[in-house]
């Protein structure tokens, strides 16, 4: 009660609360949180934005990671001159700048890059210290390359700009950013999903009875995978660099644990079952007569696969063994001073996990569990790339200075900086190429990944947004396992359950839910210290016996054992309270795993987490007071975090929690409260009204279709010159909105119109989901859209000083421009607003006839005559005319003139155009009906669209029906209604409004037929539904041909609409004709109308001749004319060329 009134009158509610007893409730009774706790969501999005994961990751890379990379590779020394060194002191990424040095203004904004095909990049500066002769020189602000900048990141000019400033930069304030502009195209680095690094995963192959624990170690230097697996119930260590599997006891001995007892204790502890399973391995090692660390290392060393560089000296097996164990096996555990103990414990723990799985096969891990996955973002991928390029840069720098330093006496003092700038282009081009092609090839890790980046789809605002939240999986698409594709329970709240493509990539490509955050790396060191402060026993002092003692829990930091505690719950509680107080990063997760007797602390990047309200003592910490403060702007989301009212939980930590969805569901075990249930859906699925009433695949279909809807794309849509742009002329915001629609501001950039729909059968042209459209509605602008297409022409410069040019207009005798040049102006470019018809020239380009040779001596001088150029015009080829929307004449990065012409078509809906509601119900327009033929209601309203009711029973899209009723109530009431998932306007309330306004509660109206004038015998479900026009339009698809072009090789008709191709009579059609016995039709279709060819065949030898002459028999006797397919003739000749002589045996047919 108190909470409800608090929404409206903050002061009175507060006074009420101060009363000792109010409406029978005491002060200590639980207080309901305001219904408005969902307001935390916009507060969250306000701070983080929709693509915060990309921005955070990039910012982390630019601010932190890049410095770490340089720190790790800070020194360059020469092999030749021991005196020389160069040390990087610092690295910075500047603000985006123009590449051209001589321009007046070096500031650049993204839109200019898009228009001029430039790269939106900022210079990378380093501070260096190096030796010049005997002196040590410090040089600051040296540019070593250019880094493409993510839009809206910390380095982008758009950050912190308000709407007006954005407008002056011609940028859309609603654009989420998070992408790059490389050579004028917008590129997104999709989020990559992969198994977490440096964590042990235990798996079982039940059929073969194999258990294995594996860990993918990843450090800056190398990546390697180590397995500990069972073979005939014995346990081995397996690694790619070791040729044979090493018995585990042997491996542990090599790590400096020579005592069998200690090995047994480390692995099995005092548990007899484990000891029994493990003891067989002791024998294995003893059989090999290996008892000391040295013996073990030598044994391993002898099995190592050596791929030494020819220069380096041969190592003894002992050295090899040490090298392998220290650097390649479980590489992420570093070994200092040949102290292998840490590694031995890690190995022992892995072994223990295998042993545990052998005893209880249920103790295996699930690869598909979201907690075992990490998301790799733009920043991480760029840092991998940058480190590779930076190392190569230093390598190149080193070789080039070595070359100079090798010379015994140099004329001038050597300045190494002269050599450093030469290679700066390598970093720039390396970054640009990787982002623009999407090929991530890293020499260090022998990694070759294609398709990392994608062109940002600008089909609609939603498609762009959907792309930014997309997650692509590393799993192969062809593999027929359902596991990775299935919806995992642990995805709840993290990944959208609806938004996934159909078909091939189904379930592998996922989308983030609305309120998620992806972590970046946090420092481990302070956490390590904190763990010890909180009372953990360090591992250096404990033995296996203590480690596995009953009640002892290991504390693992990012998968590595740090110490043990005997009071895990208390430890976790204390740690969490520190986190809630803000003493450690909010994104550090910790959870207790009772099966493994472990407390896991994670600080690594790439974990998905989401904010939840903390519940203490069965009370939500967020109270109406806080919400009030939020509403009034006195608090922002971060304040909630700082005050410890809200915290981020990752998937693993969620397992330790009891999360209530609504406040009334809080019990005494509840630890957290959901901020808002509709956040389980992503941005794209959030557009669907009443999705919780729909059959689930329908929501998935809508997620795919929402991205194809034509609408408004961005506020700067008319400034943009895209390859293909679809715009709707009169887009409307939906009558039935959702909270998500408001949050992602789809209502400001909508893609659809509210159509008045009558659900009834009409005319028979509405079968199979076809729609009946009202002609008058179309006349008045319903479904009208524009298609804008770009044409780019570059005026090239050639090596011989010639270049392409634009020519003027050709005129006929009367001085009028010839038809083809009708729309050109004197500069050879078209006039804006002119109509271009098929066959017209719209960029009158000419290329030099001689572009390769030197011009000297040919035409004598720079004044080129008309003969030196030949026409190479851009001709408009499309039976539908277009209008010239924009002409841009500019220069690209290479300083070549660039002409971009934007062509526009405005289209009204026609037969066959595709429409869809927001419930996965697509349909094509089947007939367009005159307004007077349409049924009409008592108030004279006639529908825009008639939809066949057969679309409902099998699809079960009840949400669509509720949308109609809510929409209708909104229309008669003059209000917008909500169809938010798990909430929204209630159907009952909507019916009440309808009744009040004199309509039937059901939304069904009594209509009159427009044709007969009589009442329809049924009541018709009638009201507004938001309809989207999809990009598939007949005009782009219709195709027919009688005669036309043929392929050169086979002389058969070409294929495809773009080449004006023929319509293929395929195998199955051919089979029908054969079965029917229509031999003449078959002959006509397959030969006469295709590639009939007359050949001269010699009856004697059966080979083909020409002109009635057989070249083989040297005679004209017995040569007959024959009509065969050209393809057959080609086959015979190709066979001849392979020394096979196909001979035709001729005989009379009848």
């Amino acid at each position: 009660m108190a909470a409800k009134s608090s929404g409206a009158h903050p002061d009175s509610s507060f006074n009420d609360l101060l009363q000792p007893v109010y409406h029978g409730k005491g002060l200590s009774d639980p207080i309901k949180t305001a219904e408005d706790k969902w307001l935390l969501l916009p507060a969250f999005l306000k701070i983080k934005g929709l693509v915060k994961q990309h921005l955070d990751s990039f910012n982390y890379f630019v601010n932190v990671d890049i410095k770490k990379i340089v720190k790790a590779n800070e020194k360059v020394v020469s092999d030749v001159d021991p005196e020389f060194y160069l040390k990087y002191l610092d690295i910075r990424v500047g603000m985006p700048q123009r590449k051209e040095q001589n321009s007046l203004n070096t500031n650049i904004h993204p839109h200019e890059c898009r228009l001029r095909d430039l790269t939106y990049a900022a210079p990378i500066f380093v501070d260096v210290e190096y030796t010049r002769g005997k002196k040590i020189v410090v040089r600051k602000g040296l540019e070593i390359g250019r880094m493409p900048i993510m839009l809206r990141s910390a380095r982008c000019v758009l950050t912190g700009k308000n709407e007006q400033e954005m407008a002056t930069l011609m940028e859309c304030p609603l654009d989420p950013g998070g992408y790059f502009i490389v050579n004028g195209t917008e590129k997104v680095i999709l989020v990559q999903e992969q198994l977490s690094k440096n964590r042990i995963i235990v798996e079982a192959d039940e059929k073969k009875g194999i258990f294995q624990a594996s860990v993918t170690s990843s450090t800056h230097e190398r990546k390697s995978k180590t397995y500990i697996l069972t073979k005939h119930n014995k346990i081995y260590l397996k690694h790619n660099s070791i040729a044979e599997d090493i018995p585990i006891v042997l491996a542990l001995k090599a790590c400096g644990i020579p005592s069998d007892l200690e090995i047994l204790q480390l692995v099995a502890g005092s548990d007899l079952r484990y000891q029994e399973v493990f003891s067989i391995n002791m024998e294995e090692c003893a059989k090999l007569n290996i008892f000391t660390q040295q013996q073990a290392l030598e044994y391993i060393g002898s099995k190592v696969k050596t791929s030494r560089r020819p220069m380096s000296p041969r190592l003894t097996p002992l050295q090899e063994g040490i090298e392998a164990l220290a650097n390649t096996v479980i590489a992420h555990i570093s070994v200092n001073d040949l102290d292998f103990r840490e590694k031995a414990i890690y190995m022992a723990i892995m072994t223990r996990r295998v042993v545990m799985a052998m005893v209880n096969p249920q103790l295996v891990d699930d690869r598909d569990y979201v907690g075992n996955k990490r998301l790799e973002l733009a920043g991480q991928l760029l840092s991998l790339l940058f480190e590779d390029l930076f190392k190569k840069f230093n390598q190149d720098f080193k070789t080039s200075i070595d070359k100079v330093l090798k010379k015994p006496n140099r004329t001038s003092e050597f300045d190494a900086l002269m050599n450093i700038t030469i290679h700066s282009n390598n970093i720039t081009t390396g970054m640009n190429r990787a982002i623009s092609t999407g090929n991530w090839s890293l020499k260090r890790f022998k990694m070759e990944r294609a398709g990392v980046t994608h062109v940002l789809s600008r089909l609609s605002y939603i498609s762009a947004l959907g792309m930014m939240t997309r997650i692509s999986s590393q799993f192969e698409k062809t593999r027929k396992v359902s596991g990775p594709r299935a919806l995992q329970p642990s995805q709840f709240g993290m990944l959208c359950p609806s938004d996934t493509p159909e078909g091939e990539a189904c379930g592998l490509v996922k989308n983030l839910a609305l309120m998620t955050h992806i972590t970046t790396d946090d420092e481990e060191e302070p956490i390590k210290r904190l763990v010890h402060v909180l009372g953990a026993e360090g591992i250096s002092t404990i033995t296996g016996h203590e480690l596995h003692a009953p009640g002892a829990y290991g504390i693992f930091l990012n998968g590595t054992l740090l110490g043990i505690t005997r009071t895990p719950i208390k430890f976790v509680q204390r740690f969490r309270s520190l986190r809630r107080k803000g003493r450690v990063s909010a994104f550090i997760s910790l959870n207790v795993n009772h099966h493994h007797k472990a407390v896991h602390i994670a600080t690594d990047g790439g974990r998905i987490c989401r904010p939840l309200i903390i519940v203490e003592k069965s009370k939500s910490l967020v109270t109406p007071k806080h919400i009030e403060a939020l509403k009034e702007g006195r608090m922002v989301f971060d304040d909630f975090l700082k005050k410890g009212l809200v915290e981020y939980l990752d998937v693993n930590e969620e397992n330790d929690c009891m999360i209530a969805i609504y406040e009334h569901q809080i019990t005494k075990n509840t630890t957290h409260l959901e901020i808002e249930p509709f956040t389980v859906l992503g941005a794209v699925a959030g557009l669907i009204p009443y999705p919780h009433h729909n059959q689930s695949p329908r929501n998935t279909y809508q997620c795919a279709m929402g991205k194809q809807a034509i609408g408004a794309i961005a506020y700067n849509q008319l400034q943009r010159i895209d390859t293909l742009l679809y715009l709707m002329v009169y887009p409307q915001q939906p009558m039935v909105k959702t909270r998500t629609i408001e949050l992602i501001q789809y209502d400001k950039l909508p893609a659809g119109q509210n159509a008045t729909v009558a659900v009834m059968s009409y005319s028979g042209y509405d079968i199979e989901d076809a729609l009946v459209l009202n002609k008058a509605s179309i006349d008045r602008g319903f479904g009208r859209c524009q298609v804008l297409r770009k044409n780019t022409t570059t005026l090239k410069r050639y090596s011989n000083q010639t270049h392409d040019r634009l020519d003027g207009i050709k005129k006929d005798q009367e001085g009028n421009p010839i038809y083809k040049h009708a729309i050109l102006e004197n500069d050879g470019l078209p006039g804006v607003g002119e109509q271009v018809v098929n066959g017209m020239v719209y960029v009158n380009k000419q290329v030099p006839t001689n572009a390769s040779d030197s011009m000297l001596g040919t035409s004598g001088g720079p004044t080129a005559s008309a003969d030196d150029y030949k026409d190479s015009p851009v001709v408009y080829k499309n039976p539908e005319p277009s209008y010239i929307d924009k002409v841009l004449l500019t220069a690209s990065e290479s300083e070549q003139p660039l002409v971009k012409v934007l062509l526009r078509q405005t289209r009204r809906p026609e037969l066959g155009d595709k429409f869809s509601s927001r419930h996965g119900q697509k349909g094509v327009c089947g007939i367009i009906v005159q307004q007077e033929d349409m049924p009409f209601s008592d108030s004279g309203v006639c529908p825009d669209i008639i939809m066949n009711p057969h679309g409902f029973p099998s699809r079960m899209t009840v949400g669509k029906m509720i949308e109609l009723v809510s929409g209708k109530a909104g229309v008669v009431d003059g209000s917008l209604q909500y169809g938010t998932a798990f909430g929204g306007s209630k159907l009952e309330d909507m019916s009440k409004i309808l009744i009040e306004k004199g309509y039937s509660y059901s939304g069904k109206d009594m209509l009159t037929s427009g044709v007969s004038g009589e009442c329809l015998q049924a009541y018709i479900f009638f009201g507004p539904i938001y309809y989207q026009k999809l990009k598939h339009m007949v005009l782009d698809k219709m195709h027919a041909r009688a005669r036309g072009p043929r392929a050169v090789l086979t002389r058969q008709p070409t294929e495809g609409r773009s080449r004006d191709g023929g319509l293929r009579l395929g195998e199955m059609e051919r089979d029908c004709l054969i079965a029917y016995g229509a031999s003449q039709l078959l002959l006509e279709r397959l030969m006469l109308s295709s590639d009939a060819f007359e050949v001269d065949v010699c009856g004697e030898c059966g080979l083909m001749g020409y002109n009635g002459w057989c070249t083989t028999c040297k005679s004209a006797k017995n040569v007959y004319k024959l009509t065969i397919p050209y393809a057959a003739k080609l086959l015979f000749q190709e066979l001849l060329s392979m020394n096979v002589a196909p001979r035709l045996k001729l005989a009379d047919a009848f």
Partner: protein
Amino acid sequence: MAEKKPRNRVGIEADRVTDVSSTDFPGYYPGEDHSWNLEKFQENLKIHIEYISELNAEFDLIGVDASIANAFRRIMISEIPTLAIEYVYIENNTSIIQDEVLAHRLGLIPLKANPDYLRWFKKDDPDFEPTDYDTVVLQLSAKCTANPNAPEGTTDPKLLYNNAHVYARDIVYEPQGRQSEWFPEGIAATNPDILIAKLRPGQEIDLTMHCILGIGQDHAKFSPVATASYRLLPTIDIIGEPITGELAKKFRSCFPKGVISINSKGEAVVKDARKDTVSREVLRHPEFEGRVRLGRQRDHFIYTVESTGAMTPDEIFLKSVQLLKKKCQILRKFNLAA
């Protein structure tokens, strides 16, 4: 059944509509003659005008068949010739509204002009030259400039700039030939406040428009009505015992205001069935089952004509009658009606 249902009733049931078709032909009901004859028709035909204003009219047409009533409706929507902008010659358009969209918007502006003075413009004939008999010329030119006298700190574009909004009232009529005689009041948009485009300083629109006659069938812009429709007169019959007391109040609340009143005896009585919107709410409640019969009078048409402003609603209806008559004459002339 106790009482006989009137023959001209459409039945409104909870889930369906019954008796929608007319039965005025001989032999439908045994022993009754409902066949059409002129005297009876003359006697029954009534027209009652509820109200007429400049743009709207509501009137009743009683005693005709649905086919005739519907014919008038259809003709009003789609066949009455009206003047609308058809050709737009754009001299200059630097606004953000594209030429085609601008032309489309202009076309939809209803014009106040008597179409009777004009002849048909022959669109199909490529050699047809527009004359003052068939084409009306309109002009629109607007140029937006910054307003130097704008008040400090305002963000209202109407104050900041001159001509920031282009309205239908900015369209200028240019009489050709004898048109000034025929249209002494000139030709203008019926609604001067229709927004055509928004401009910003430096943007300009300069265009000439040609208006021709057309019919709604060709394009909705030629339709003289926003909509023309009719509904049947609702009937409400309280059957059996009168509804009294609390039930009567509930009964009243099932209908729009003014339909049902409660008399001095506390009984619900039908006051004005015409105001009913046929929401069928009363049929939802089981307590009224068998107590009320809803229906609509099949030959009583309540027309609503909303004019776009080109003609008055009565003019539109009369024209539709004329047109129907003309069609009949054509049929008769060629003996097609037999």
